């Protein structure tokens, strides 16, 4: 799906097939290497278009991976490594944006959207209920239109009957 991106930038920025972590970079301890990989997936290669350093073959990504591994080897926890990278490269490096005043809209947005959507549904039902009481019987015009439609709609009605039977 990166293809459209490829179309746009003609591959200039979109790193070619990701080669990512090189064997020479790997830590000897598989547990630590696993952690380094996890951290690498949360950090952005800052010269790439939305790629994590774990999946980028840009030179800078390789340097950043090296820093991550040095820190982990020195005994830092995953959180500490991420904090260190953030202090060095800024919020931009975090693929998981931090919750702070600047990003309240980002993190609060989905909940607000969901509440608005569900609220709108509730309002819809409420309005329907009041209108329901107002215009329950068909007006003469509506009744005439209904008859006309029913007469016209033979085919569709037959179709619907068949469907009704299947249901």
């Amino acid at each position, binding site marked *: 799906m990166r293809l459209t991106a490829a*179309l746009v930038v003609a591959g200039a920025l979109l790193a070619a097939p990701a080669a990512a972590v090189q064997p020479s970079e790997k830590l000897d301890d598989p547990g630590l290497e696993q952690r380094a990989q996890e951290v690498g997936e949360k950090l952005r290669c800052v010269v790439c278009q*939305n790629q994590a350093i774990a999946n980028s073959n840009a030179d800078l990504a390789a340097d950043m991976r090296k820093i991550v591994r040095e820190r982990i080897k020195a005994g830092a926890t995953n959180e500490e490594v991420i904090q260190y990278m953030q202090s060095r490269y800024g919020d931009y490096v975090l693929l998981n944006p931090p919750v702070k005043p600047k990003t309240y809209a980002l993190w609060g947005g989905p909940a607000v*959207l969901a509440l608005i959507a569900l609220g709108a549904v509730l309002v819809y039902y409420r309005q329907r209920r009041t209108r329901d009481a107002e215009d329950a019987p068909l007006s003469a015009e509506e009744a005439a239109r209904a008859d006309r439609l029913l007469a016209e709609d033979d*085919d569709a009605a037959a179709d619907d009957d068949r469907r009704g039977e299947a249901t």
Partner: protein
Amino acid sequence: MIVEFGHFALVLGFVVALVQGVVPLVGAQRGNAGLMAVAPAASLAQFLAVGTAFAALTYAYVVSDFSVLNVVNNSHTAKPLLYKITGVWGNHEGSLLLWVLILAVFGLALALFGNNLPPALRARALAIQALVAFGFLGFLLFTSNPFARTMPPPVNGQGLNPILQDPGLAFHPPFLYLGYVGFSMAFSFAVAALIEGRVDAAWARWVRPWTLAAWIFLTLGIGLGAWWAYYELGWGGWWFWDPVENASLLPWLAGTALLHSAIVVEKRDALKSWTILLAIITFALSLLGTFLVRSGVLTSVHAFASDPTRGVFILGLLAIVLGVSFALYAWRAPHLKGGGLFRPVSREGSLLLNNALMAAATGTVLLGTLFPLIVEVLGMGKVSVGPPYYNYTFGILMIPLVLAMAVGPMLAWKRGRLGRALARLVPAALAAGVAAGWGILRSDTAGSAVVAAIGMGLAAWLVVGTLVELLERSGFYRHGPATALRRLPGMPRAAWGMTLAHLGLGIAIAGMVGSSLWKVESVQVMAAGDSQTVAGYTFAFHGAREVKGPNYTAVQGSFTVKGPDGATITTLDPSKRSYEVRSMPTTEAAIHTTWVGDLYAVVGDPAKKREGFVTRLYYNPLVPWIWIGSVVMVLGGLVSLSDRRHRVGVPARARTARRQTDGEGA
């Protein structure tokens, strides 16, 4: 000469679009049949003009006419013919020409197959289509002319980006555009209906097949793109929440919501103004996607600001389309009276809930996509919004949606019985429990166990729930298996379509969750004779050799893979290509697909420190389910599209046909 002819045809198409956009509108307003009849004729003319332009550009590519700048920049004589042709849309100008061509094809289809529509509605819809085409043809002619010449012509071209020289990628853009542009039909119908001030069941019946067709194409396009990323990028990822990917997901989400709300309009005459709004939003999101991708604003706000001609033009188009259609909506929609009443617990109620959640999910993806741009424009620094954000927010919104997906179809129209539906769904709940337990056992960290339990549980719930609904509908529970078997084949195709599409999504969810949680990878240097075990499979490396392709050379490695029991499963021959014209490497992963996962091997550069090659070996569990699920969803769409009521269910046409037969009889 042929190139100038193409350029001229494009100008002609531009003028024809203006005529088609104005005259039928006036005709429909005055009830003048003669003016309205301009629309279908102009559609044909526009198709011929734009088609000629497209053919001319294709010709320039096929014969490698290097006096055309676009061909110079994107082609080369040594390229295989297939990629000379697909190179036509592998660039900004050509892809926009394809966009307009597809718009013209949809217009022509409406002109040819729309005889059963009320003439005024058809004239108006075709006019709106043409006004959109007018905007885009103007964009092409004034900012992105594909026929621009260059003097003196160079001896050869610069070649096509190697990443685009791949069958999956070659056909991805046309499908994506068929989807994007297909939603223009729903938009045109929506605006036409607003002008007329009338939306009824018949309207929904006409709009649904076009929306469904666009949805099928977009699903295919997105699926093809994800598949390409999976086998080509060489590390087994298939979705990155990249803004460009999100740009295609947004209209898909809105379009899916539109398909569902149009059902309520058709069957129950309710949710009219919401459906109209969704049709407008869906197409607006298609345009927004085009803007994001085409303006360069995603690369950097500054890059966009330094050469804003194209971006500003599309932004202007977007503003006009949105402004005019929303103004029309605000003016007309309040007069659209909904008919059918229903309770919250009912089929309509569940479709409305689906729409609310889909709208929130669409808004979330839009927010995440635009947020970095907004922050940058406001001078608040730079932030990244990556996969973790979407996994939390979008992921959580999907949970109630999928839960409701199994219940909704079990409810009756108007007033459903939730208790009865849930009682029927007990097997689905049991299956979900088993799948969740399996997911937990399969995971080795607490975090992935939680995600696995939710993801696998939802997938099983949806698959089994959908099958339960199929049984219920066939009368299995009330009349027994014999009746059910007899009835199943005769069920409406639209019902089968829904069953398949929902099943497909369930399968795909399992694939998406499993592949992201349980991927096993191993990166190392291997020399001929070395073996490496990944997830129980042993990959034996036999070395690599050089092979030559039509316009590239490649290093091709060879592996034999043995299963845990020692039996040989397959041989894998991944390669790394280096293209002569643009010195950019591409990896060609070798993949062996089984029902439960992919064995995936990539060969990289020769190692620096010792003899051998860097190799990457993966076990990607459940990835095939993503592709199977997507194909099943597309099949569902196709089956639903073939439902006879889309073709003969419109009463007006049946009446005309009857009258004609009567006439012949007399």
